[in-house]
């Protein structure tokens, strides 16, 4: 069946998402679309120096993209921007590794549940959607900072 894909952890995050909803204040946001299915997500970030003070999000999407957003929130909120981007890279490496990249549970925590998704190429984009939007939003926030 689909057990490799729909791990309990993923279904839990999907049914009880953490940190969902768009919040103020925020420095930047990014809106990403998955052109093959029309799924959309908006991610906002509020940075404070080196800290990710808040990440908030809203969107239409499948269990995988919704759960990925919830896990993203857990993994990056309250940490440093640098740690967040490291986790972004680790998550992306795992997702595009076709199931052959062994994820580090210390870095990705609940995110390792997505290792099974990497074996479903059509769903990789779903899992990456909020993470890509997050990275974009961080880049924009930094741009805004450096161009006062």
């Amino acid at each position, binding site marked *: *069946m*689909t057990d490799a894909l729909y791990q309990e952890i993923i279904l839990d995050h999907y049914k009880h998402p953490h940190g969902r909803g768009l919040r103020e204040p925020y420095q930047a946001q990014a809106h990403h679309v998955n052109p*093959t299915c*029309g*799924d959309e997500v908006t991610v906002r970030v509020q940075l404070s120096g080196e800290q990710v003070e808040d990440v908030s999000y809203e969107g239409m999407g499948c*269990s*995988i993209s919704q759960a990925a957003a919830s896990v993203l929130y857990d993994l990056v909120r309250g940490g440093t921007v640098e740690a967040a981007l490291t986790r972004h890279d680790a998550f992306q490496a795992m997702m595009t590794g076709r199931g052959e990249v062994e994820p580090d549970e210390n870095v990705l925590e609940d995110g390792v549940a997505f290792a099974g998704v990497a074996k479903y190429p059509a769903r990789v984009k779903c899992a990456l959607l909020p993470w890509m939007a997050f990275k974009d939003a961080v880049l924009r926030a930094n741009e805004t900072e450096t161009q006062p």
Partner: protein
Amino acid sequence: MTGTVAAPVLDVARARKDFPILSREVNGHPLVYLDSGNTSQKPRAVIEAMRQHYERHNANVARSVHQLGTEATEAYEGARAKVAAFIGATSPDEVVFTKNSTEAINLVAYSYGARLRLGDEVVISEMEHHSNIVPWQLLCDRIGATLRWFRVSDEGRLDLSTLDRLVNERTRIVSIAHMSNVLGTINPTEAIVKRAHEVGAVVLLDGSQSVPHLGVDVTALDADFLAFTSHKMLGPTGIGVLWGRSEVLESMPPFLGGGSMIETVSLEKTTFAKPPTRFEAGTPPIAQAVGLGAAVDYLSALGMAKLARHEAQLTGYALEALATVPGLRLFGPATTRDRGGILSFDLPGIHPHDVGQVLDSLGVQVRVGHHCARPICVRYGVAAMTRASLYLYNTTDEVDALVAGLAQVRKVFG
């Protein structure tokens, strides 16, 4: 002989044996292929016709006096004649081979569209496939023309109450799906064609979904163009068809320039061949035409009327079966009247991706997403839908497998 003739019934079990892929397993289950609206499967006769062509008759066409070239040319032009007969065209010269429906529509938008002027109007509908939207948006942008569209009712029908206002003296082109790839709706073309011709506009029918299923007759339809695509009608990928009325095709400038579409070329000036050659620049999809010809032979031998009856019955069965699924919301007409075997639906609270994934794990292949028709999804307030689409080789057992699969979906995500 009692005076009544029993309607001949399609022998589905026998037809299924013609499709090698149908004996395949998917994720440990027998394949249940319910995605023919996306692309159909291919019978052995089509696959073999192309193999034979490559192994025995392969050469370029219309350019050689040699034996292989003659054989390839006869095969290619023979396929054109078969396609013309299949759609009731008065001459093979009205059949232009393109790479798919999308190119066929773009050909009209570029070539016929070149005569449009600022302020002219093009009319489409809210239920069009992106391939029958974007070419017209690009044309209108180039020219400064205006794009207008028919609305769609809650039941999935074109709202023709605006016909006389939408299609007016400024209208130059009306381009409408003959059958919707999302709702299954078969559109009433007669009134639209009549009104369009009244105001001097041409009508393109997007037959991508109708030609494979309905037994289309271009003479009866009385439109000016019909676009369709081989891979949805048992043929190979890589080839589509633009049928055009002779006088209209002859009035059109070239679209793609290159080998074979010319009369004579000098560096200063080139003159062009007559249709259909004028619109077939470069080496055409030769082996693919052979495959499409074989597909048309297969469909004709089976009988389009028999096929349509089978699909209507199966669609009726599926409509009833889906109505038993708790909460399921069907898009498009609720009965088989003027609708084909395309069944798009929503399970509230469960994203189509998740529906499709669980079904896939059971071997059931359906399409999920916006089906290249985002405006109609927006019309019904959803980002995506799940779609099952039927063809001659599908059975009631397969519909049952779909419904059973949906129960499983609700167990995982309910």
